[in-house]
């Protein structure tokens, strides 16, 4: 994959259902605590609604639902990762996010061909770091097909 060509990749690490995932820092605008969410009717189930992010109305996607995992109540450690892909800006609700690390490009491998892995189809690659397995997610795919399913 193209990641091989990029020297060091700085990523934000977040937790979801006990696993660790990573998004490139370049696509992350901020990490927020969960705030009041306003539900938007007639949208995909994984669209939890919108929130007020310093004056900007930002849609929220619950990644658990998006990845087909079991939905859980929000806790103190629940975080919203604000990402921006092309002209879209959304918040991803994750179990927790607290780490920024550099991944040497040599550590990134293409996604394993294992069926049944959650987040299947949303993975860009996997990085193996000191026995930590980081799953690199493909934001463009996560934000894709929102329109066709919107109603």
């Amino acid at each position, binding site marked *: 994959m193209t990641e091989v060509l990029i020297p060091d990749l700085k990523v934000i690490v977040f937790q979801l259902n006990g696993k660790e995932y990573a998004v490139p820092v370049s696509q992350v605008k901020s990490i927020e605590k969960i*705030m*009041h969410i*306003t*539900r*938007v*009717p*007639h*949208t995909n189930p994984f*669209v939890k*609604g*919108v*929130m*007020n992010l*310093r*004056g*900007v*109305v*930002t*849609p929220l996607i619950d990644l658990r639902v998006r990845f087909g995992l079991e939905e859980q109540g929000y806790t103190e450690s629940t975080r919203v990762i604000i990402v921006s892909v092309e*002209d*879209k*800006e*959304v918040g991803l609700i994750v179990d927790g996010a607290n780490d920024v690390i550099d991944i040497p490009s040599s550590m990134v491998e293409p996604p394993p061909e294992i069926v049944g892995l959650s987040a299947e189809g949303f993975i860009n690659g996997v990085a193996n770091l000191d026995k930590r397995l980081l799953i690199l997610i493909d934001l463009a795919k996560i*934000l894709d097909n*929102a*329109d066709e399913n*919107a*109603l």
Partner: protein
Amino acid sequence: MELNQYLEVFIEESKEHLQACNEQLLELEKNPQDLSIINEIFRSAHTLKGMSATMGYEDLAGLTHQMENVLDAIRNNRLVTTPEILDVIFMAVDHLEEMVHSIASGGDGKKDVTETVEKLKAIEKGEPLSSTAESEVAATAVMETAKQSTYDEFELTVLKQSMEQGFGVYEIEIGLRQDCLLKAARVYMVFEVLEKIGEVIKATPPVEQLEEEQFDEDFSVTIVSKESPEDIKGKIMKVSEVVKTIVRPLEFDEQNAEAVLDTAHNENEIESEPKPEVPAQSTGTDVPAATEKKSTGKQQGSNKTIRVNIERLDILMNLFEELVIDRGRLEQISKDMENSELTETVERMSRISGDLQNIILNMRMVQVETVFNRFPRMIRQLARDLNKKINLEIVGAETELDRTVIDEIGDPLVHLLRNSVDHGIESPEERRAKGKSEEGTVVLRAFHSGNHVFIEIEDDGAGISREKVLKKAISKGIVTEQAAAGFTDKQAYELILSSGFSTAEKISDISGRGVGLDVVKNTIESLGGTISIDSKENEGTIFSIQLPLTLSIISVMLVEIQKEKFAIPLSSIIETAIIKDSEIMNAHNQKVIDFRGKVVPLLFLKDLFEVPSVPSEDDFHSVIIVRKGDKMAGLIVDSFIGQQEVVLKSLGNYLTNVFAISGATILGDGQVALIVDCNALIK
């Protein structure tokens, strides 16, 4: 050379000059003898030439130069303006526009214009003089006007023309009492009198200085008027504290630097000094130095603006929107705290920010002229293509609209105008047969009313045939025959706005194919506006567009459904009511109520928006009656919170096309409330 930083200015100004050329050319077409118009065009072209040469756009400069030569020839009476010449000039301006557009979009502004240049040259050579000789003539002409320094070229032409039209040109010297305290007020009163009897061409010192009281007791004004000198004098003397009025007719044949000053001692002088104690002091400032004379007051007024990048205004608006949100929050906090000092301060702040809001919104207002000004050319071209005679009248071009609306409204208007010209106005032969004048009239009118701006397009053409429209609509399956029978005329006309409709028997490339008018309707509705049609067969049609003044801050009614808050735009609310369970009736599985004699269908927002709820035992329901056009619906909510001004925000690019939600807003407590799109709820 580092010219990039000037590029933007260059493009903006070029566009302005080209627009000026276009407008003046159209004027010229109406009054081919009017030299002042030629002068205006010449000036614009000349500036454009200079600018483009500096910026290194050779083709642009070359074409402008050639155009200038022709204009110069006309100006010096060596050529007579004919429609053919104008056509070529129009063509040249078109080419120039294309080049400027190409530069604006990052191109090099190059274009092969040799054909047009050749044509211009040919026109020019229709005269024995060669181009070099011409420029010499032009140079001497400039020299001549330079001598007549007291009035500039423009003023001179105006004065000369007025005289030709039988107006008298007078220079009036007015003296105020030495102890006059409110000189500016008196000046204002004098000008008011003068403007009633004629037109003020020039004032010395200039109007600006007069308004700022930068003069002693005397000033002079040049006016054109049909009144006699005695009458003018009498009227001015009625203004209190005016002690001296001298009215002198101006002669033009002897007009040169000396002549104007000389007229001060002209025999025709009518002098009166009713209060003899003052005049001694006034003589010192009698005739101000001619060199101080400047252009007319009208031109000065336009200088008091600055160019601001629209982006900055948008940023300002965004910042202000955040302030509005915080204002809402502060208001809520102060209400909860019940501290009188806090409440007072917050109230004051609210009032100030209200004023600020008005100013910022006003700053974003743009005159519709910016959209309208391209239409005369378009109509001219259309009329030629279709062999029709059409006169476009523009009324109220100074009406202001929010920039966001301005940006969107252009295309719909183009469509409607094309429609009027193509389908509305008949061919000259047809018009003659109907006993109308051959020339059709299209009126484009803009005006303010309340919180809305109306734009109307009226033509005196064939009108809409109700029968034809209904027949067509039925055949296309847009309406059923039964429904059609019950339609009012207006409803029938509005069918032409529905998609898949085209009544023109012959499809032309000007308008038609029926894709147009429903797009127009959609665009206008997406701007929060409405469009209606009125028509009389053989007398004409009026398309009337109603638009909101601004799009970014709107008044809404906040309502609550369970724990969720929704905002309903006040513009679509007719009224609110509380109804009892027993008042709800059933008609075809649709719950309805009888509201003031009308059957209004009910919509339970709770169900519509799938609000998670516990069934309530309440016998009473809060209902908001909303409308879309003539149709109404009742929205059932749990409770009303109140009316509020909110900032309209979009849901972003991720959530698009959410059913019945037009956007969101942020409330005083920082929460997001969704704005209900009533148009989507009523079909």
